[in-house]
């Protein structure tokens, strides 16, 4: 299928990209990996008037640790995050999650900044970002993950605002992300993440609502000494997932509990 016509401009710096976005206004979109945007454009679910291609911006794909924080540049591709020694050492769960996104071809193109800005409820990185209190740094400000994922496909990003990097805390204790799906390259029907950090547990859930979810009731139960299977019963507390082709709301809530239990038990 052929996308609707659009104007195309390449930016060689963040400033230039921001200027171009301002010029084209609200109907412009940033083109990074394009693996969510281009399929939407082909189905004409998205018909931006202009695309600002940021792939030529240098030094936006950095991955580095500094001051107990892991800085991942917006243009870091999934394959880079998956294979990065720095990520494996400082936040191994992120490398593992990156390896579960799409397939080789998708991972060669898709970027972490794109996943954040797209804010798909089934995105995997947003769950990790929310559960670990990561920060999304833009060309205008720093936004806490808990304030970033507002609703499905909805973030506080202004039309001329561009994600520069995502800053995670270093966490290399026991961890596990379980992405439940029917085929390897699919989105998660439900995903559950567990990370031991600072003596406590962080628990996150993917695709059980319009935004990623931090399962604080499970975290608290674990903190109070509950066994994983007891604590995991709270994973569906307060959830109101919508059903889709693959899973009913009841089934998603069931998966949230089962996968949370497994993630805690399998964390290493």
């Amino acid at each position, binding site marked *: 299928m052929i996308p609707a016509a*659009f104007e*195309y401009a390449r930016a060689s710096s963040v400033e230039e990209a921001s200027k171009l976005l301002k010029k084209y206004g609200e109907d412009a979109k940033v083109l990074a990996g394009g*693996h969510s945007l*281009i399929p939407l454009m*082909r189905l004409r679910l998205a018909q931006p008037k202009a695309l600002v291609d940021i792939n030529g911006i240098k030094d936006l794909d950095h991955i580095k640790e500094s001051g107990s924080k892991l800085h991942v540049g917006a243009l870091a591709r999934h394959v880079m995050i998956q294979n990065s020694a720095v990520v494996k050492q400082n936040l191994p769960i992120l490398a593992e999650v990156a390896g579960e996104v*799409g397939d*080789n*071809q998708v991972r060669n*193109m898709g970027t972490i900044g794109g996943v954040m800005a797209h804010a798909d409820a089934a995105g995997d990185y947003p769950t990790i970002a929310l559960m670990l209190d990561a920060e999304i740094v833009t060309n205008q400000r720093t936004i806490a993950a808990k304030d970033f994922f507002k609703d499905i496909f909805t973030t506080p990003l202004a039309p001329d605002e561009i994600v520069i990097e995502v800053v995670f805390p270093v966490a290399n204790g026991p961890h596990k992300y379980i992405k439940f799906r029917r085929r390897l*390259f699919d989105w998660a029907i439900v995903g559950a993440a567990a990370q031991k950090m600072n003596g406590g547990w962080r628990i996150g859930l993917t695709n059980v609502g319009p935004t990623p979810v931090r399962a604080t009731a499970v975290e608290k139960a674990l903190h109070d000494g509950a066994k994983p299977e007891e604590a995991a019963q709270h994973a569906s507390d307060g959830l109101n997932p919508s059903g889709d082709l693959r899973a009913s709301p009841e089934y998603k809530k069931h998966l949230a509990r089962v996968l949370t239990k497994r993630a805690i038990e399998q964390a290493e």
Partner: protein
Amino acid sequence: MKHKVSTTVNGTRREHEVESRLLLVHYLRDVVGLTGTHIGCDTSQCGACTILVDGKAVKSCTMFAVQAEGKNLTTIEGMAKDGELHPLQQAFWDEHGLQCGYCTPGFIMAAAYLLEQNPNPTEDEIRRGLEGNLCRCTGYVNIVKSVQAAAKTMGGARAKPTGHQAVTAGGE
């Protein structure tokens, strides 16, 4: 508005003026005239359109031609050299790695990337490495065998595409 796009396709420089909305796969098939790269699903799932962009396997239906500016592209037509099939092509032939053959160019390009990354993959690594490609005929068993056979023939040598323009280029 049209944009100039300069690429190297299978070792040959190409320059065209294209519309920004032209997908790379349509550019290769309809503008350059290399129809070996197939379009299967139109939803970025099937992998039939897989090519190498600067050596990396990419679904050419999920990239605009304008994004290929300055890039080195390798399609299935760039795999054979001097009339001799690439070891992967020969292995798919020998091991019956195809039935209808529609998905085959994509599988071979994805497998070329896989062997470049990992010259001696296990069966599980092959299956995971080809997760972005769908085949409706073979049940994948013979595709996995083909990649194993090619890895053996190549003796762990890297599956570098030749960059050579095959005689069949131009489409039939």
